[in-house]
Structures are given as C-alpha cells and as structure tokens.
C-alpha cells in the first residue's frame, strides 16, 4: 500500500475497504475480512485497522454479528457511493471549477469533452 499525505491512514484503510465493496469484491451481505487479515495484507497497524472498521460501523456500512464478525449492511454499497458522491462535490468539483476559471474554460468545452469520454 502506498500512503498519500491527504488523509490519516485509518481513513485510507476505510476507503480501501469501501473500494472492495463498490467493486463487488465483497458481495452484498458478505463478510468483511478480519482485522488480522487486513493487517496482514496491508502491513498496517491492527489498532489503525480497528479504527477504520469502527468508522465503517459508525457510517452504517457494516454491522457486527456477535460471534461471527462484521458483515455488510444491505444498503452498504449505496451508502458508500453516496458518500463518495458527496466527497466528489465537496472536493473534486470545486477544484475543477477553480481550474476552469484559471484556464478560461467554458461549460460547453467541458461538456463536449466529458460526453466524448463517457461514451
């Protein structure tokens, strides 16, 4: 794992796990890997991994089943996607807008390029 400087590591791990949900690697209702498995795969401190897991619990992405482990909630995927959308609107879009201003790009130019890319 490469660590970027923008987020504390526990949040990066939470995102990494969320990515697995989005991609379907952890199926709906599926079991989250254990703290130990995550630590072993990433080389990240288990305490830090635990914080990531707690963040996911807090956000309703996973729920704990006593004695069995942590499992995805039914709306886990939607929640993650919504959160990512919100992040996109709060962080990436303002950056794009600022860059557009600096480069004098028009909405039409952006629209054309985006349409082409989305095909």
């Amino acid at each position, binding site marked *: *794992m490469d*660590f*970027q*400087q*923008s*987020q*504390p*590591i526990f949040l990066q791990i939470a995102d990494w796990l969320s990515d697995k949900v989005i991609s379907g690697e952890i199926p709906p209702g599926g079991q989250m890997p254990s*703290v*130990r498995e995550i*630590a*072993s*795969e*990433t*080389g*990240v*401190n*288990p*305490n*830090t991994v635990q914080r990531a897991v707690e963040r996911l619990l807090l956000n309703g992405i996973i729920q704990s089943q006593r004695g069995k482990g942590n499992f995805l909630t039914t709306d886990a995927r939607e929640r993650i996607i919504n959160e990512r959308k919100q992040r996109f609107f709060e962080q990436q879009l303002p950056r794009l807008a600022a860059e557009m201003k600096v480069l004098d790009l028009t909405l039409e130019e952006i629209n054309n390029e985006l349409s082409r890319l989305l095909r």
Partner: protein
Amino acid sequence: MISIKNLEYGYSSSKHVFDNLNLELPDGHIYGLLGKNGIGKTTLLSILAGALFAKGEYDIDGIDPRKRNNDLMEQVRLDVDLDINPTMGINFATKPQTLANILADLYPNFDKAFLQKAIERLEVPTGKRLYKMSMGEQRKALAALSLACNTRYLFMDEPTNGMDITSRTEFKKLVAEQYAMPCDEQATVDKTIVISTHQVDDLEGLIDAVIILGKENVLLCATLEEIGKKLKFGFATPEDTVLYSESGANGEECVMRNDSGMEMPVNTRLLFSAVTRKPKVILPLFNNKI
C-alpha cells in the same frame, strides 16, 4: 506496561548515555523508537530486556528486568542488530530450523506455524547455516525467529537493516499479523512491540506511536493519532502557522499547527527533524504521556 523513572546509564563513569530518563509505555502499541546514531536506542532496548543493568526505577508489568525473572523473560524477546559487532556477530553453526527448535523450548508461546510462514515470505534460505548467510539473510532469519517467539513484548533493533526491498514490505506485514495474534488463548493483555529504526518509511503505517530520543532522555512520546490532531505536515498556505520548515525536493516542507480539529496524516520523517532541530517549538504542544 513499561515504566521507566530516572533512568541513568553510562558505558563508563564519564560518558552518560541516559540521565534522568522518564518514559511510560502503555501496552497495545507498536512503537517506533527514533533517534540519531549513537543516541542509545540499542542501549535502551538492551536495558529493558535485562541484558544491561542501569540505575533507576524501571519495570515491565511491575517486574524489574534486572532480576532476570523467568516469567518475565519468557514474555520478552530482544532482537538485536548485530551489525555493531560484525566479528562477534552470528556464529550459529545451525540452520534456522534447529535454532527454532531451541527457541521453541524456551519461549512457551513459540508459534511454529507462523515461523514457517515468515520464513517463506521473507525467503530465508533454510538450507544454509546461519554463519554462512549474508548479513541481510541473517537479519531476516533472526527477525522471523523473534516474531515466532510470540512474546508479549518484542524489542527489535533496526530489524530491516540489510533487508532487500521486497522483504521490507513482507516484514511489515508479518509484524502487523503477529501483533494481531494473541499470545495464547487466555491473553488478556495487548502485545507491545518497540522497533528502533532509521528508516521510518519502511515502517509507515505499522507504527502507531513514536518515541523520539534526544541526548540523555526522551524528547517526545506520543501516538500518531495525538500528533495528527495537533500538527499537520506538508506545504503551507498563508493561513497556516508554520512551526518548522525544511527544503525538500518539491518545495518547502513544513510542520504546521493543526487547528482544524481533524486528524491529519503524520510525516514521521519531518516530525523527527522538527523535534530534534526545534524542540522548544514543537514539544510544548505535547505533555509526553500516552
């Protein structure tokens, strides 16, 4: 818990390595022990393990290491960097598995299955006798063996010295996995690992607390969480209060006050520079207790 009060130690009566050193390390963290060359990282670990006798009050779980109490020694493993004395270094005329069998008889929670995994992942040459291995191979063999001892306290002195790039990554993963495993079924206490190192990048993500040693005593001891809530690292904007800066490849890298209330990622390398070069600016923000 490791508790150290008024630690005093010198190799000779005139040269003091530690003077009035105080440190309290609660269980349940992987500590990175940082400090300049010769500051005493190896000495501190050796003192805690009971190889050296210092003056002062110090104990692990209430037991004085100087007593060399068997119950304590079974739960403490010292993994030293033998590079300091290459001629005295590893003379073991055995292969790793033979040494493993010996250690398994001494450390009650020795984990043979984990050792196998560690040996494979670190690519330790099991067919060679230890004294015939290169320094890096010896270091890997010893690290695998020490981790497999599965003790509550593990003190590793520059374990990645001489390790190739892939092994450093594998080592980190193995430490993380080993740390997450309880010593035995009844384990109620968390493990504690202290790793002394120069290469902080190797251990990024693995350590969750730092101990920075200065001349004769401790400059800083804090969790990365606490540091990340009080400081931020990177490039400064005009609104930031810069506490320390140094020139980096991409510009001025700074340590700034974090007023956002949100935890920011910690750049351990920068932190170390800032604490050792500008202690009076950085340290007042911390009270040195975890």
